[in-house]
């Protein structure tokens, strides 16, 4: 592998991992809020979350640029207050991926929250568990398969994210040139196909590695949650 390829590989891994990590807490909070609370404007929030998906990725990318560029209102504020610059840095790539992948993470988590038997949460309350403890010890562990599915979707989507990243932070070698952007660059040079293919294979390898981790986590969770027990307790048929 050439140094550029290695660089793009690690950058992609870093960006996708960070995007997943950045998305997870707000996705959990939002999924819970949308699923468990009835409030006016709930539908609006729901639609808003979905938004980045339904637009071509350049659009969210440009909006990020307007908002978080060095000249953008939020970008200036971030820099002034925390000294954080996201524009044209890998942090911006993380942000672009996170925004695009966020809806993909929220949906499975919501689904898991919905399918949990609320009576178990109530049973915990009768044992003195205050709401946050119920959430941490009952709701969240029972929703684990949903969390894992959400993370898989989010990570995969981040790995493949191209349009928003390109529009927001550009294609800067070593800083924002993730695998998809590097692949794009290769389509513009003669005989770039072989190189693009190599990078595509690297993307796939990365995704497979992530999938393996998720499978392992999933199997662990299944064991912990006793799904497999259920299956075992009744028949291999």
């Amino acid at each position, binding site marked *: 592998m050439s140094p550029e390829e290695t660089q793009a590989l690690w950058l992609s891994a870093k960006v996708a991992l960070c995007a997943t990590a950045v998305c997870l807490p707000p996705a959990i909070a939002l999924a819970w809020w949308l699923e468990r609370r009835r409030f006016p404007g709930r539908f609006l929030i729901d639609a808003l979350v979905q938004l980045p998906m339904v637009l071509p990725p*350049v659009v969210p990318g*440009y909006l990020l*640029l*307007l908002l978080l*560029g*060095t*000249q*953008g209102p939020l970008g200036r504020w971030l820099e002034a207050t925390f000294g954080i610059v996201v*524009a*044209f840095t890998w942090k911006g790539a993380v942000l672009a991926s996170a925004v695009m992948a966020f809806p993909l993470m929220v949906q499975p988590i919501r689904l898991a929250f919905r399918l949990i038997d609320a009576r178990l949460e109530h049973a915990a309350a009768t044992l003195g568990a205050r709401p946050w403890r119920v959430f941490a010890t009952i709701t969240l562990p029972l929703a684990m398969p949903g969390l894992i599915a959400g993370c898989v979707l989010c990570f995969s989507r981040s790995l493949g994210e191209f349009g928003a990243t*390109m*529009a927001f932070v*550009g*294609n*800067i*070698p*070593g*800083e*924002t*040139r993730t695998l998809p952007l590097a692949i*794009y*660059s290769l*389509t*513009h*040079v*003669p005989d770039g196909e072989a190189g693009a293919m190599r990078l595509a294979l690297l993307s796939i390898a990365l995704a497979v590695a992530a999938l393996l981790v998720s499978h392992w986590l999933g199997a662990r969770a299944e064991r912990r949650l006793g799904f497999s027990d259920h299956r075992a307790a009744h028949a291999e048929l």
Partner: protein
Amino acid sequence: AAPATEQPVRVFAAASLTDALNEVASQWKRAGHPQPSLAFGASSALAKQVEAGAPADLYASADLKWMDYLDQRGRIDSATRANLLGNTLVLIAPAGKAFKARMQPGFAIAAAFKGKLCTGEPGVVPVGIYAKQALEHLRWWQPLQGRIVGTDDVRTALAFVERGECGAGIVYATDARISGAVATVAAFPAQTHAPIVYPFALTRDARPEAAAFLRFLRSPQAAAIFRRHGFTVPKD
């Protein structure tokens, strides 16, 4: 404070310049300078990024519009602006399926090839703007109605022709040269469309090192590279 070691020049350039600029950059590096950082994309996206304060010293556009856009907004150093390169518009066909075409009005282009004609989206993407002008000038636009497939950049159009999905395509000479899977049917005469030029300029916040690199881009050494990639290098 005294300037630290020389910083790498940051270039935002139209994607069609990828190959040529990469080569110029390695020459520059070989001359003892730090490897320039080259970020490629669509001219439009790059322009908006420069407008938003992108870390670019040098902007190279594939058409005049987007350079004007930045010029009007005061984001570039107008004094350094120059049309460094030119390109030629060519009609291509899949390799082995080349056809004959006379590049003049009255030629029955519709019957000359089978299937679709691919190019950048007519009137929108730079190559499509030139293509539309040329087709209209040759009065081929009407006969080809309904057979034109637009794409978002030249490379997609090229890929369609390479795969034989389109019987013909209009791309830049530089692109046709990249691919072994297409044959150039003919070049469009220069008068059939507006001149294809690549304006370069330093950005308003360019680092001092960038001026030297821009000078290098105008050197005979660089010109030779550009020519080898099929660009024309107009004499100032």
